[in-house]
């Protein structure tokens, strides 16, 4: 774990230099470099959502109580990386499209997925006893909902031209991008494990208290 953390720290320290070395993009200049953090955050956001969905399934249908800790950790990371995505996205869009926000399918579905995980975190914080299963139900429904949101928003806006085409990246841009993806993946794994471990240990402390009370 320590090794992983040191590695992630080094990678994030090195990332700005690599991004700086990447060539300027013709039309957007410096601003396009937000992309090097935007895309990895978005990927981790979606990974977190999938992890939360799978863990919810394990909790509800396979009756693994410890899966709840993974749902919780993944949901919080979905909120974290979702926030990173939704903050860096408009910064880029302002320069690229001239507006902060468009009601594009991808943007709107990301926002809705983010809202679902915010709802999850609120539920776990204020829902009281029994909110673990409730939350798992919410996460599972959220997962099932993503394609519907995507399709509906996509058709809602078909009347408008597509906003952007992701260009084929030249190699000098590709290397820093994949470096950042690797760094974010590492960060994601570390945070997920730490957060889940915190919940495992909290659970154990509770068990010990209960055992003490009974004795």
């Amino acid at each position, binding site marked *: 774990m320590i090794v992983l953390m040191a590695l992630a720290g080094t990678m994030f320290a090195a990332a700005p230099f690599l991004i700086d070395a990447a060539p300027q993009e013709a039309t957007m200049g410096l601003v396009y470099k937000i992309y090097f953090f935007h895309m990895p955050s978005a990927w981790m956001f979606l990974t977190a959502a999938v992890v939360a969905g799978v863990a919810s399934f394990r909790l509800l249908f396979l009756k693994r109580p410890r899966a709840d800790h993974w749902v919780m950790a993944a949901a919080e990371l979905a909120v974290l990386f979702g926030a990173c995505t939704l903050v860096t996205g408009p910064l880029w869009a302002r320069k690229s499209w001239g507006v902060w926000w468009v009601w594009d399918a991808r943007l709107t579905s990301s926002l809705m997925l983010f809202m679902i995980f915010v709802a999850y975190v609120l539920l776990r914080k204020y829902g009281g006893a029994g909110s673990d299963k409730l939350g798992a139900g919410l996460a599972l429904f959220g997962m099932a909902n993503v394609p519907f949101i995507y*399709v509906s928003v996509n058709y809602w806006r078909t009347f408008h031209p597509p906003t952007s085409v992701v260009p084929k990246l030249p190699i000098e841009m590709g290397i820093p991008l994949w470096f950042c993806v690797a760094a974010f993946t590492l960060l994601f794994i570390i945070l997920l494990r730490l957060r889940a471990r915190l919940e495992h240990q909290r659970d154990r402390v509770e068990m010990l208290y209960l055992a003490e009370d009974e004795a």
Partner: protein
Amino acid sequence: MNAFARIVWFIVKKDLTVEVRSLEILSTTMFFAVTVVLMFSFGLVVDGRPLNDVAAAILWVAIAFSGTLALGRTFERERHNDTLRALLLAPADRPALYVGKLLGILLLMGLVELVLVPLIGLLFNAPVIEQGVPLALLVAAGTLGFAAVGTLFAAMLVRARSRDVLLPIMLYPMTVPVMIAGVRGTAALFQPTPDAAVAQFWLSLLAAFDVVFVILALWTFEPVMTD
């Protein structure tokens, strides 16, 4: 009649009996829906003329808001007398309980919509009678999708703290497809020359949503309602 259908029928009959004797949820929800329509009209009608597509939007927002209220009140009634526990203790299939509750909610929302849709037609000059059949299908499919998710969430939230605020927080992001499909489909029907093909597309999306979420809810109701 098999056991499943009998349990469903018992639950619907029970909910109906309670409701008919007090009319509490129906009357308050219906009045609330009318108020929502008026509030939005004041906000969105400029110089005596509504903005484009505003009638469809107001209709669906009113359905969602009043539906949330009906869901909350229905399960509050079960919680207040601790009768949900009795229902769960009964030797009945959990999915049958869910279907019974869902039908009760659908009936309530349907009655409210019977007032809401003509009201929209009246206030916004919308062709609710000419486009009656496709509009009814859209509203029915949208209501089913909304209520299928809502019934499950409201039932799960019965034992949670701050359930009043948590229900809309959970329900609205989840029913975004219903809102988009409902509003776009209805707006297509309300155009000067109704666009049946567009309405058809949204109706099929709603139908797919209904199928997936009713099945998913039947499937999750058992584990989430078990302590």
